[in-house]
């Protein structure tokens, strides 16, 4: 615990200065020129190879570029709300839920931490374990135990039922794996002084990210979102609720008929509140720490849930609420709702090099060297902006970096995202299962066979290319095809290198770390200022 004491301090993203905005604008301007130059080059008639495949490739490529631009647009609005002191006398509830199979020891720590939150409040444990020991834990930490077994709608269903049973004006919905710091409510409640504020979300941070490659990668994927990402959404008036650590105004929830239900219950709730005219506040502050999935299997399950759920924003909520949102909110929700389209575009990028290397089919008649020349400036500026906005990470000392593990996990997750996307389009339902709180032992082959298959296909292809070009191809044909062939090999190599992360993570999942990460946490040492 001692060496980790710094982890548990209260931290916040730094303020946004004018100089920062000027730098971002300058980078954005350069980025825009580079993108226009790239687009002007890309869409030349001479570049169309096989027309249908060119359209597919363009779609995949410009989907990726549009994600970059949407990120830049989001960062243009980066805002950190002013501090507002919490008035005394507000009535506040904390809801946390327990489901069968969730580790009892974790609740000891969570409820102990809740009891140490300074602002007067009442903690409710919404329990459907039918296990008396959970009631004992609640009693020990003076939390109110509410039995809510067999209620449909999973977590959100329990929250809605509990809303009927309670009267507090403000409700902090806390995931049970999160250990709140004593200052949590003090930081949040002042913002409700503005009577149009419907909810206040704080950052999600983690305390188990060093326990495995998967945990670190999964955490890395969220760092930018809980720093500059949500700060940008805040500036656009579209800071969203993220399931955990969100404090709602009761009247706001009632106005939309209660907390949203479903796989993306948090986003659905947020867009409905925005549609009903409520404002939201995002505080880029670490006032609690929770868990990320530690094993690859749990991570994939979580990602499947999210990728299936998030599409509901696009397909169900956005069309319905479109007229009631401001255009910046529409753009923001569209950005969030289409994030997992990556699962559709990734197979195109994976497949196309092999189409050329095996069958000679060329979707785009572009010279590799030229492509690099046009795409590199966009890449350089993209990385520059990514690194620049890291000054607004909630905990920069721990979170800064290139986040290559997160990228590797994202690359590995495309089959999951693809499944989520397809299930969303065909409107197939998948059950809501809480993300595992403890690492689950995984079978190596079952977890990473797609990556192993990819490496296998790549190795065979590479061997065939080398053999073909050294012994089979006529010299005259060899002479001028080097750039095209080895350029395509380059495009096939990148994802293979990046798939190494998933293979390693699957290997690690065979032997999960022993013990719960909460075992070593002392609830008395949470919070406080940075030393």
């Amino acid at each position, binding site marked *: 615990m001692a060496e980790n004491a710094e982890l548990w301090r209260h931290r916040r993203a730094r303020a946004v200065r*004018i100089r920062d905005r*000027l730098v971002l604008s*300058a980078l954005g*301007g350069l980025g825009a020129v580079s993108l226009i130059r790239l687009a002007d080059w890309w869409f030349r008639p001479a570049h169309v190879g096989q027309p249908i495949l060119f359209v597919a490739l363009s779609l995949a490529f410009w989907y990726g570029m549009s994600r970059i631009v949407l990120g830049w647009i989001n960062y243009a609005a980066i805002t950190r709300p002013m501090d507002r002191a919490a008035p005394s006398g507000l009535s506040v509830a904390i809801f946390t839920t327990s489901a069968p199979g969730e580790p009892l020891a974790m609740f000891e720590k969570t409820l102990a931490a809740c009891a140490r939150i300074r602002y007067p409040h009442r903690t409710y444990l919404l329990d459907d374990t039918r296990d008396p020991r959970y009631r004992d834990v609640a009693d020990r930490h003076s939390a109110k135990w509410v039995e809510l077994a067999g209620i449909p709608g999973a977590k959100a269903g329990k929250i809605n039922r509990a809303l009927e049973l309670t009267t507090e004006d403000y409700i902090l919905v806390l995931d049970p794996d999160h250990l709140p710091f004593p200052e949590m409510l003090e930081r949040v409640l002042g913002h409700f002084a503005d009577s149009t504020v419907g909810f206040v979300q704080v950052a999600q941070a983690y305390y188990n990210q060093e326990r495995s490659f998967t945990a670190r990668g999964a955490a890395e994927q969220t760092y930018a979102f809980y720093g500059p990402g949500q700060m940008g959404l805040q500036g656009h008036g579209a800071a969203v609720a993220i399931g955990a650590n969100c404090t709602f105004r009761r009247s706001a929830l009632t106005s939309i008929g209660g907390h949203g239900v479903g796989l993306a219950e948090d986003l659905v709730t947020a867009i409905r509140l925005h549609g009903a005219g409520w404002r939201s506040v995002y505080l880029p502050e670490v006032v609690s720490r929770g868990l990320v999935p530690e094993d690859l299997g749990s991570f994939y399950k979580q990602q499947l849930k999210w990728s299936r759920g998030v599409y509901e924003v696009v397909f169900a909520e956005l069309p319905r609420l479109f007229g009631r949102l401001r255009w910046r909110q529409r753009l923001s929700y569209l950005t969030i709702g289409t994030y997992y389209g990556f699962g559709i575009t990734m197979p195109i990028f994976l497949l196309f090099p092999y189409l050329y290397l095996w069958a000679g089919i060329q979707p785009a008649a572009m010279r590799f*060297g030229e492509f690099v020349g046009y795409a590199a400036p966009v890449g350089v500026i993209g990385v520059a902006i990514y690194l620049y906005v890291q000054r607004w990470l909630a905990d920069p000392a721990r979170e800064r970096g290139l986040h290559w593990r997160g990228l590797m996990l994202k690359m590995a997750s495309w089959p999951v995202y693809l499944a989520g996307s397809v299930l969303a389009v065909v409107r197939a339902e998948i059950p809501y299962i809480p993300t595992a709180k403890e690492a689950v032992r995984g079978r190596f082959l079952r977890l990473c066979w797609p990556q192993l298959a990819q490496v296998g296909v790549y190795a065979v292809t590479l061997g065939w290319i080398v053999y073909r070009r050294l012994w089979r191809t006529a*010299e*005259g044909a060899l002479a*001028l*095809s080097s750039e095209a062939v080895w350029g395509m090999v380059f495009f096939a190599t990148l994802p293979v290198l990046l798939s190494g992360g998933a293979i390693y993570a699957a290997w690690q999942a065979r032997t999960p770390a022993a013990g719960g990460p909460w075992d070593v946490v002392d609830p008395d040492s949470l919070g406080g200022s940075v030393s």
Partner: protein
Amino acid sequence: MKRRYRLAVVATALASFAGGVWLLTTFNTRSEGPLASLLERMGSAVGSLEHRLRGGAGRGERSQRLRWLEPYRRDASRLRHPQELLLGAYDGGIPATLEGIERLEQTLGTTLPLIQFYTAWGDKPDQQFPLVMVNAIANLGSIPVITWEPWLSDFESSRHPHIALRDVRESHGMASVARGDYDFYVDAWAQAASRFPHPLLLRFGHEMNDAYRYPWGPQNNTKEEYIAAWRHVVERFRLAQADNVIWVWSPHVAYQYWEQYYPGSAYVDWVATGVLNFGPIAQWSKWWTFAEIFGTKYPELARFGKPIMIAEFGSLAVGGDRTAWYTAALAALRTKYPAVASLLFFNVAEDQTVTYQKVDWTFLADSILTRAVATGIRELTHPPSAPR
């Protein structure tokens, strides 16, 4: 305050956008920018590496067959006075692939020491020094012959404000080349050529006396202007120490006054002309024998005292006996025209540079003809490029 900051932010974004445009266009004016040329060099290096690996695997046969050409590939001065007749070809598959050259060679039972291709002046990437192509040809063991066409209209006015606007540029364009208006392009090309580690034959501004074809012809320029342009370009190359460049002057001998375009012995290494029999396909043509097209001009061509190249050699099939045409031509080259030091086949299936319909110069499908040509060139080129 807030409004002032907003204005500052917008202004910064706009200024940086404008700065980016300026930077990019500035880079673009300098031919293709440092990144593009670096990537071009890398691409070419990968090609060369591949060839070396293949040679290491004992599979670089073509260059092995051309080992006799090494003295010429090492020493440009030797190529100014060749001791053997050097065969070569241009193939319609160029610049995409050199497979067609290989097919031609297999059918004719020879390996061609020269490979010709065409490239134009201009701003586009494929109009810069053709590094990838010359290296590919060198890797195959051959020597490149580049027909270099000064299409002045392919330069963007916006990038080159100091040259005449596009619609008036070609009028006396050779005079502006001679004045140095295009040195930005000529010098870059010359420097790149000087770095090429082998000799290359450069056939610049060919058929300059034909008023119906290319913009560098007499419809736009005087003879003196053409000669001045030639000499200026050669001098720029000499300044860049591109001594590996062999200058091939190539008039169209069917049109008169061609000899008056000769830039002078000090500026020319080879003289060349095309010998293409179109047969009766157009009003202006009929079935001409090799002797009628070339033989009648040979004495004048030989008078320059330079090696002679037949840079485009071929006959169409319609209107006469093609086999007899080739057989007679090759036999006559052996006996009557000793100054001819190079013969380049024009292996193009869909040529419409002169006529409005596509014409086919290839003959590989005609096995009687290919046997005749194979025999003809075997006797012509003894001993070096003889049987494989």
